[in-house]
């Protein structure tokens, strides 16, 4: 089932006098249950693409259709709601709200969704268990390692039961052991629970785990390989 469709997507940033064409006419679609890496050299447009899919940025031209909704037509506040209900995010670093514990961070989105306290607590504990952090549920982010923080971020991204999870270089700040660990968790979630992951990366070890690899260069897709 197709859940994301990008049609002739373009993004131009205006940097003073100069126009930076970060995304140049991309057509792509993603299916439910994918485990996809977006790769490419620095400045090629990976982050821009993920931000556009995630509704964090507006395209200069083209359409983004998620589950039959053209998110370009949504107003800012409706778009925020849409993100909350449909998309999970994992950023490169500092994902978490520093004043909340791991558990509270995971509960945060469910709270925005208006879930009951019981449901929130149960699900948060369950998710933290899945990412192997049952022992650290009451720790604040500053007390967790980078890898543990990213695992909490994955748990949080899952909490809202999103249609897919976007992760922009989730392992960039991690050592190889933490990287492997995070990837294993993501892969397991993808296999066992059919969670869709779309992530960007520089790291060849991460690329190797992906089942589909989309390569971008200079704002264009240069290859799209499904293993």
């Amino acid at each position, binding site marked *: 089932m197709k859940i994301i469709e990008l049609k002739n997507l373009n993004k131009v940033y205006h940097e003073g006098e100069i126009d930076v064409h970060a995304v140049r006419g991309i057509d792509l679609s993603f299916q439910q249950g994918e485990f996809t890496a977006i790769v490419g050299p620095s400045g090629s447009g990976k982050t821009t693409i993920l*931000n556009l899919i*995630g509704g*964090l*940025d507006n395209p200069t031209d083209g359409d983004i259709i998620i589950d039959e909704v053209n998110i370009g037509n949504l107003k800012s*506040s409706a778009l*925020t*709601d849409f*993100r*909350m*209900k449909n998309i999970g*995010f994992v*950023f490169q670093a*500092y*994902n*978490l*709200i*520093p*004043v*909340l514990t791991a558990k*509270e961070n995971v509960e*945060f*989105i469910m*709270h*925005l*969704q208006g879930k009951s306290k019981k449901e929130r607590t149960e699900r948060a504990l369950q998710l933290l268990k899945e990412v192997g952090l049952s022992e650290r549920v009451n720790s604040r982010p500053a007390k967790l390692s980078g890898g543990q923080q990213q695992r909490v971020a994955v748990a*949080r*991204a899952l909490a*809202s039961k999103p249609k897919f999870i976007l992760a922009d270089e989730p392992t960039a700040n991690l050592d190889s052991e933490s990287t492997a660990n995070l990837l294993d968790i993501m892969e397991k979630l993808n296999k066992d629970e059919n969670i869709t992951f779309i992530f960007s990366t520089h790291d060849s070890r991460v690329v190797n785990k992906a089942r589909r690899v989309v390569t971008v260069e200079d704002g264009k897709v240069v290859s799209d390989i499904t293993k």
Partner: protein
Amino acid sequence: MKDFFKIAWRNVWRNKRRSLITMSSIFFAVFLALIMRSFQLGSYESMINSMVEMYSGYIQIENKDFPEDNTIDNSSEYSENIISKIESVENVKTVVPRLSSFSYAYSKDQSKGILFTGINPQKENEMTGLIKQLVNVKITEQAVNNIKQKNVPREIINKLLTIVNNYYSDDKILKFDLELSNDEAREYIPIIKKYAAYKNEYLKQNDKGVLISAGLAKYLKLDVGDSIILMGMGYHGVSAAGKFKIKGIVLLPNPKLNDMIIYGELNNVQHYFSTYTVSDDFKDTTFLLSTYAVNLKNKDDESIANSRDEIIKNINSDLFLVRGWKDANKELANQIKSDNETGVLMIMLLYVVIAFGVLGTVLMMIAERQREMGVMIAVGMKKTKLALIVSIEMAFISFVALVSGILVSVPFIILGNIFPIRLKGEMAQMMISYGFEPVMPLAWFGSYYTDQVISVIVIVLLVMIYPLISINRLEIIKALRG
């Protein structure tokens, strides 16, 4: 909602030092503003008290020519009928008739210009508390010698010797002048009062005696039981002269009056000055007076104006001029007004400085949290909710600061109100020369408290505009990139 409070609460404490500095700057602003304001209002109250409440009244009724030419010739009719017309106004508390004019007082070896004032003893006491101002202690050498025998510490005796010939009507002032601690006061003041007691009598109806003010008694070296000779000019050039027995000495809070006033019973003084007119058929005598001083129950400007209008309507005579105290006492009213404006300006400046300080911390806080705010909005938190959290934080900080500023000020206000600071030295001298009691009391709690609360709320709301706008304008992409 509860969770927003939780996040806000933890945010407040994540940078403890900054929050505490912000709180303490608001706290000090509130505290200083309250104390400054209380001092100011308190000193106005004390001025108004010693000039208006305790003497001239909130409304003065006089002969229409009296303000321009305040001689005895411009006296006006005194009658029970007029008094009851004034008293029939709901807001009127007391009506005090007075006849007042200058004369010379002679004792054995001194003379001095004085103000001879005829009063209704009972009504005058209702208004000015004159009975309480009767001297009950006079420190004489004889008294000090007696006190010496009674195991009173040497220091206190020495201090007593420095205040020989002083009069006291209030233990608090005696305690203050002798610099006694509470315990000392409890132990020694009764002894001092026993040996330095001063016997006085207040004026009765139709009394022929007089009360003289303490400053004057000291100057003329007169005591109760002595006689005093007064001479002056009476009504329409009639000469006035009389010998009066001194029944009491009064210590007046108004230092100017304390050096010059002699009180007599109204009728007695009317006869002294010959202030009465006789009808053509010699059947009716109309007595005259200078002023009806009127005290009111409600003393705000509006009530004064309304009461004044009602009095004018009731008296219904164009021979009288009815004025509120601000009209009758323009100098004092203007002095208070301009001083008050300066004070308000000072407080506004204080608040502006604090407002910029608070704005600074809020801006720093917003800048520091760009990234996490970006994350929060990215994962689906509405900007309005984020703004709510920041608002709760600021509200909490300012609420704590405001409440503690108010609470800490409370004991100061209570103490400073009950035990006003008595000025000494030049400052006191200056106040006395302006005719005020040299005290700096703090005003009791009042609307100036609500003013500060409102000011702080307004400032916080103003300061909040910027961060709320910047949250509203926050671009997720930029915020996430840090």
